[in-house]
């Protein structure tokens, strides 16, 4: 199975990437943007139990002092936001962080990981159209030459 791990910040001020991106998006002229949060995201494939994935999160991927994490089944992380943007590398683009994560998982004694992918989930809040988000993606959040991106409207 594939576990999707999303890592979020407990407080906006721990999210410098989000802050920088907010400035960039406002620069683009999308003044309706209220906030943007960045969530490092990992797709971990293999025969891994819930206990094991939690161990991976706690020992490797998440700094629990400033971060929370969510596994696939939970989706309350998008509450209060309007748009979700998921960005990851296109097939064949080198993903060095994924290689390090895979090696790291082995060092904590879990050996049945088949594949790891990394990426980002962005949460946007504000009165933006799908087209607005599309432009924001192309200009700020993803580089279409190397990234796939997916835009999802949050249903309230």
């Amino acid at each position, binding site marked *: 199975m594939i576990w999707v791990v999303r890592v979020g910040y407990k407080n906006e001020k721990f999210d410098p990437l989000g802050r920088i991106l907010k400035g960039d998006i406002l620069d683009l002229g999308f003044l309706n943007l209220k906030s943007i949060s960045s969530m490092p995201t990992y797709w971990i494939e293999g025969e891994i139990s819930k206990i094991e994935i939690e161990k991976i999160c706690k020992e490797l991927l998440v700094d629990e002092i400033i971060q929370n994490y969510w596994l696939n089944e939970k989706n309350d992380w998008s509450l209060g936001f309007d748009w979700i943007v998921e960005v990851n590398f296109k097939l064949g683009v080198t993903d*060095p962080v994924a290689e390090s994560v895979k090696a790291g998982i082995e060092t904590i004694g879990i050996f049945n990981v088949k594949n790891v992918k990394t990426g980002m989930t962005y949460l946007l809040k504000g009165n933006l159209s799908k087209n607005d988000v599309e432009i924001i993606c192309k200009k700020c959040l993803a580089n279409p030459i190397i990234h796939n991106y997916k835009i999802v409207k949050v249903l309230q």
Partner: protein
Amino acid sequence: MMKVEEIKILDANDKELMEISQKYMLSLSLEEMKAIQAYFKKKKRNPTDVELNTIAQTWSEHCFHKTFKGIIFFNGKVINGLLRSYIMKATKKLNKSWCISVFSDNAGIIKFDKKYSIAFKVETHNHPTALDPYGGAGTGTGGVFRDIMGVGAKPILSTDVLFFGPLDYPYEKLPKGVMHPKRLMKGAVAGIRDYGNKMGIPTVNGAIGFDEGYLCNPLVYAGSIGIMPTKKYIKNPKPGDLILLVGGKTGRDGIHGVTFASLELTSESEQIAIGAVQIGNPIVEKKVLDALIKARDKEKKPLYSAVTDCGGGGLSSAIGEMGKNLGAIVDLDKVPLKYAGLAPWEIWISESQERMVLAIPKKNLKKIMKIFNDEDCEATVIGEFTNNHKLILRFNGEIVGELDMNFLHNGIPKVKRIAKWEKTVYPEPKLEEKKDFTDDLKKILSDPNVASKEWVIRQYDHEVQAHTIIKPLCGIGEGPSDACVLKPLENSWRGIVVSNGVNPRYSIDPYNMALSAIDEAIRNNVCCGGRRIALLDNFSWGNPEKEDRLGQLVYAVKGCYDGALGFETPFISGKDSLYNEYTTESGESFSIPPTLLISAVGIIPDVRKAVSMDVKEPGNYIYIIGETKDELGGSYYYKLYGSKGGFVPTVNPKKARNAYNSLIKAIDKGLVKACHDCSEGGLAVAAAEMAFAGDLGMEIQLKNVPVINLTRNDKILFSESNSRILVEVPKSKDDDFKKIMKGNVYAKIGEVTKTKSFVIYGLNDHPAIEDKIDSLREAWKKPLRWWSI
């Protein structure tokens, strides 16, 4: 089994030959295609795709430097190779005994002390950065580290010079497919930061410039210096040596990156260039470095007989170059892949990062494999060097390519190009004589080109390895350092001084631009105490197939020649990146401003004598060395009033050299407390930077400044005449300083004060500039603060 395609060129006519060149993205000209056709006619067979790609890579502008080696018709004269006729010729004429390897290996190598040598290389990575700034700039840095590792040295510092479009460029005016300069800068800086910091190599020197000319073609120059024991330098592969590929796995990364670099960018580049993008993995490269140093030092002699970087052109270039005088046989199926499905030609020319190629004597294979295993670094034997002067490529035992080394390396027809350029003399602006220039000074300090680059510098680790003596920011006021000083050896005070000079604003006169860049690089070096200086040239230019672009290049190269001889500073390495042009949808083509980066590396016998640029003590005198002239062409003062001006600063190398030699003597005797060069913004900016860096005031009298035909305050304040240095000398050392400087043009022009006020008195003794140093510092720091970017 992957298919190898036979490409039918034997009976192709001119039109078909060009279609083949385009279809397979070979970037070969008709003449070159014809030479290939003739070769295979002799062999009585068609080439395979592997062979054709190998030739295209080896003959590309990026690998072979066709323009610099070609024949140029210029003003009725024939230049047979710019590189050989000028740049290398200067080095040859100077014939310095401390040059160990110049223009032949991955990096230029010069002696450091009796036992050690240093290797220096600067690369460009412009095109990949335009497509993906993070990956492009990062792999540029990673690539130049491998160049240093490719001569067997350990990288100890990294330099980065970047050029972008204006940061406040309106989004709606951006051409299609072009990233905003802000995004490019943030991405490029992050890429360089992540590669250098993660490999533990300090990024200590650099520059950032902004101009509309770089909007579509940003420039990234990544440089690195390494150190090694001189006697460990070896490049002697022998027949029978095994070819060992180490480091990263091979994927489709950067396929056709090299031939891509020889093309202009268009608004379609975004769509077609996917393969040319690369992402770096510094962790893998660090493992390669550690293993390589072990292989070098484990026994008395290195365990390898040669090592080289697998960079532009991939295995094709690395093995082709190493086996040039031997011959090689390679099994492409043995190359470890990132994913299945690569065709043999893709494996052969892929530019996947973090790979290096070693030649290993068979008896050392076991030992070397153990070292790479211990470092958890992949190493695979993929072939063997032979003595039949043939390059043979196999896939699963079947021969998929066979080429004569001689044809591959010498078969390329010399390109013939015409160069023609005439100087446009822009009118000198008529500016009114004002009384007060404080606002002008502040505006120049706030020009993004002059302003503090703290936001960038703070992201780079410039302290790691713990040998940085003079850092990018000096004094409690954090002023801009002229050069960086490093102390690379634990048990020696001897240091390396690294600086650069670049001024594309002077490209209205490329000859003097080159001389100015050389003078700037050298005087920056001298300011910190550097001597015995060696230079590197890096040309980023427009399309050399256009006469005017090439004409400018010829003038700049001539400037390099005269500068190198005049200052007695040999060129030891260089690189060119041409075709930096952008074609709009309507078919118009724009070139970048011709940009010549000169990097300088000097030696300081005792780093404890190195001088920084911040003033140290109230009461000390301020001297100026050199003459101030009416040559404000391309200056920031004229830019302020929307003008270019006709005459850019010139250089008198002999006079400058004498003055620099005297200054070095004064520095060695400890007579100098601070030194700063006058460049962008001239005397006023240099003096202000010294004052606010030291958090002290300064008073300067313009009437004491040595000038030639200048009677206006503004021109003395802001002229960017070369070869001028401001020097802080304690009163007690005044007489000694004068004695040493005798025979040079120099003058006492002011004093350091404790008032925290910065005052420059004009020719009439009234203040022409007066402000608090805090206010000047704020003007300088504000524009590029991270929250304003």
